[in-house]
């Protein structure tokens, strides 16, 4: 399974990573609260969340730069939580890349190998292989400042894989690149990771980044893991309101379910009524959650079950879709409609009826 470029010069093994009840604080402030995660061998795993959610602290705890006050970090069966950073063999690509400006590209890559006191010939061979692997074999004599942002990142990656790390940590790897390059680099990153076969943890606040390149994602907020799953699972079946609203746009109505003669009906606090499917599990004090694209605008003026009437307040052109802001009573809703060339879009002030597919509604506890 060795990559043709890596050959036998750089040997990488996929191992599992277990975060076992890890907690950490800055002073009185709890930044990680009983984190448990299992990352499978070779998996590309994302820690996703808004800034301040603890994702970077968790990554730094794995690398040994932040101290956990409780819990264990187990890599391939070995507990590394008591080791200093330089003994962990956990490769990290820093957000800033952290290439040392006083060393050439090749010397940067050689650094970790020199620290390991490898024979000079081995170092030279591994440096060449690592740089070839990231496609920068010709630039070994350059200074980091002479490289583009994308090239610098690849040097940082080469520097990390040269030491044959057990796992790979990527801290916001795309944040220092401009928007166009970002899409290209994230594809490259995915393909490099697949070739390496290394268990990889990526930290990001950008859901698109996590969704496009990672096998599984842990959504974090306020120092806790909110949900773990594949991108589609998280989007389709958010475990709580935070996940629902953090991944994409969601309409959330608060209210309660009442039983009527013809079945159960959800009454929102804004006075909207909506039938509840017979098989749906609805917790007490329910929240009704649905995505803008799971609604449709019905032109016929027939108020019926599952149809909400209101008027358009604003319109945003998003390219392939139009997003309407709709006011129904004192409730605001987002409704998406496909943009079709030649079809006149609705304009603010137009009265409108919106139907919501019963099966796409997700019920969450309040």
């Amino acid at each position, binding site marked *: 399974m060795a990559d043709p470029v890596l050959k036998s010069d750089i040997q990488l093994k996929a191992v599992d990573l277990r975060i076992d009840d890890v907690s950490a604080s800055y002073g009185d402030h709890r930044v990680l609260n009983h984190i448990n995660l299992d990352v499978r061998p070779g998996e590309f795993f994302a820690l996703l969340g808004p800034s301040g959610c603890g994702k970077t602290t968790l990554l730094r705890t794995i690398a040994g730069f932040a101290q956990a006050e409780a819990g264990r970090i187990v890599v391939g069966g070995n507990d590394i939580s008591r080791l200093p950073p*330089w003994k962990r063999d956990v490769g990290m690509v820093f957000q800033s890349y952290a290439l040392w400006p006083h060393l050439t590209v090749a010397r940067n890559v050689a650094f970790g190998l020199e620290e390991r006191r490898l024979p000079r010939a081995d170092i030279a061979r591994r440096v060449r292989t690592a740089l070839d692997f990231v496609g920068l074999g010709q630039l070994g004599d350059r200074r980091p400042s002479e490289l583009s942002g994308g090239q610098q990142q690849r040097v940082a990656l080469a520097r990390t894989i040269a030491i044959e790390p057990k796992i790979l940590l990527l801290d916001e790897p795309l944040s220092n690149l401009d928007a166009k390059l970002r899409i290209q680099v994230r594809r490259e990153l995915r393909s490099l990771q697949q070739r390496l076969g290394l268990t990889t943890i990526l930290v990001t606040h950008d859901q698109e980044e996590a969704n496009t390149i990672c096998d599984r994602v842990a959504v974090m907020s306020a120092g806790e893991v909110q949900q773990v799953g594949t991108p589609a699972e998280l989007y389709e079946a958010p475990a709580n309101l935070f996940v629902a609203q953090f991944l994409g746009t969601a309409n959330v109505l608060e209210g309660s379910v009442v039983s009527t003669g013809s079945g159960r009906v959800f009454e929102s606090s804004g006075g909207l009524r909506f039938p509840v499917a017979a098989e749906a599990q609805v917790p007490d004090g329910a929240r009704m959650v649905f995505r803008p694209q799971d609604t449709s605008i019905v032109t016929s003026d027939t108020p019926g079950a599952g149809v909400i009437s209101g008027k358009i307040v604003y319109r945003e052109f998003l390219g392939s879709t139009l997003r309407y802001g709709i006011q129904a009573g004192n409730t605001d809703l987002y409704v998406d409609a496909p943009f079709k060339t030649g079809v006149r879009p609705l304009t603010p002030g137009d009265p409108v009826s919106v139907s919501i597919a019963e099966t796409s509604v997700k019920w969450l506890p309040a």
Partner: protein
Amino acid sequence: MSALARRIGAIPLLGSIGTGRATAGQIALALGILIFLVLFLVWPVATVIWVAFTEKGTGTFTLVNFYDFARTDLFARAFWNSFYVSAMAVVIASAFALPLAYITSRFAFRGAAIIQILGFLPLIMPPFVGAVALQLFFGRNGSVNLLLDDWFGFKVPFMDGLNGVVFVQSIHYFPFILINLSAALRNIDRSMEEAAQNLGSSGFRLFRRIVFPLALPGYVAGASLVFVKVFDDLATPLLLNVKDMLAPQAYLRVTSIGITDPMGYVISVVLIVTSVAAMWASSLATRNIDYATVQRGGGGLVRRRLKPWETAVAYAVITFILLLVLAPHFGLLLLSFATIWSFSPLPDAYTTAHYIRVFGESSLYIKNTLIYASLAGLIDIVVGTSIAYLVLRTKLPGRISLDTIATAALAIPGIVLGIGYLRAYYGVQLWDGTPLASLWIIIVLALAIRRLPYALRACHAALQQISVSLEEAAENLGATKIRTVRRIVIPLMTGGLAAGFVTSFATAAVELSATLMLVQSNADAPLSYGLYVFMQSPAGRGAGAALGVIAVVIVAASTVLSQLLVERDRRSKARHS
């Protein structure tokens, strides 16, 4: 040239926002400045170089003067002494600065505030003033050696000969290394260190391979500055009665043999070449490498808490250096109030007679100093602002050269400028026959030229902060260029200009190298010269010390004032933006 001068090269790009064609006013301004710089910087220095390379009397080109210089034992020794003293001063100053910089940048430490004070305290006292006071404590018969002799029966030659110069200069100049090195360490991003740890490096290896190389440019910048300052200094060796160094030799040749003797000029050229070489070496060491690696939100190196015994060591180091740094201040203060202080650890009795004498018969020195330093400061900000304006706001051809010429004054030692003025203007006579070089205004001009590079940077920074759109708005509303400058630009620059003025004023107030060459009569002498004269005789030391205290107070007050001005200016700008 220096990093400063290199940065100037980048300015045309930034300055290209200015208006189209040069106006007559701009051309007149530029010509005025050019004439000023040529008359009082280029011409005197060129004269010195010309004399050094020509045969006395005939004016034909020759290298024989340099041959004589190299062949004369005294000069060869003076050269090596100057070199040795400068190099040793760098070594000792580094020994003071390195631990302090390391403690502040690597550890969370309460004593860091003391270290910051240590970083400027020595600079408010001119080194030649401190020299006298240090001799009282550390001289052959100073307090420390008397006590050592009493208790242990031996003495340490801290202040004997070249040792004394090294000792005084390193205490005075180590802040230059401390400030530059601390800044360099502060600018290292935490991720630089963490990346090394992540790849398996730790402890001293990490320091040697990553932290030290990244901080090196800052250290080199500070060290080369110390080297140049010590190499050029005239007053400190003279006051310590060390004559076989280059600057004192140049002074003695010119004052005792006369301004036609070529040796003073040869030495001047050697001084200039050494200055330029040191600055060039420093820029070479920092070339191509902008090592400031701090990222937004990054923060500097990780600081760890000190263990109790480490805290004790840190405080011991700081206390030791603090005592050394305060020694000249204390010594001077004691001496200024002492009746007699000789062969005893402390003075015999105390008196205010020295201050009465200084404020009475010698108040002329203080008055002269205030006038000279104010005028020099004023000239500096006027010329500095004009150059900054031409560089940043116009497209006048050659405007960068004005900046370069003014900045080149950095490489000209005070004594060289002094000799140059004497040679260039002694023959020029006024209507009543007095030589131009003997007028007190010449001293002011020398002071202004010496401080101009620093003032120019201050003015440049002050103007750069003002958005061009503020000026364009004024022009849009009907103000002419000149009125825009007067009503918008100057008021907005006030804070920066005031700080620049105060800095020029404070350093000009205690200048001695050029002054020593140019003072022709006691009536025209400034404070630093008076101090020098007083210190020549044992009877004058008390009064000299009193003058020294006054000098320190002037400089300290100016330094505080300039900090306040900068701070207030910064805050008011922050409020408005």
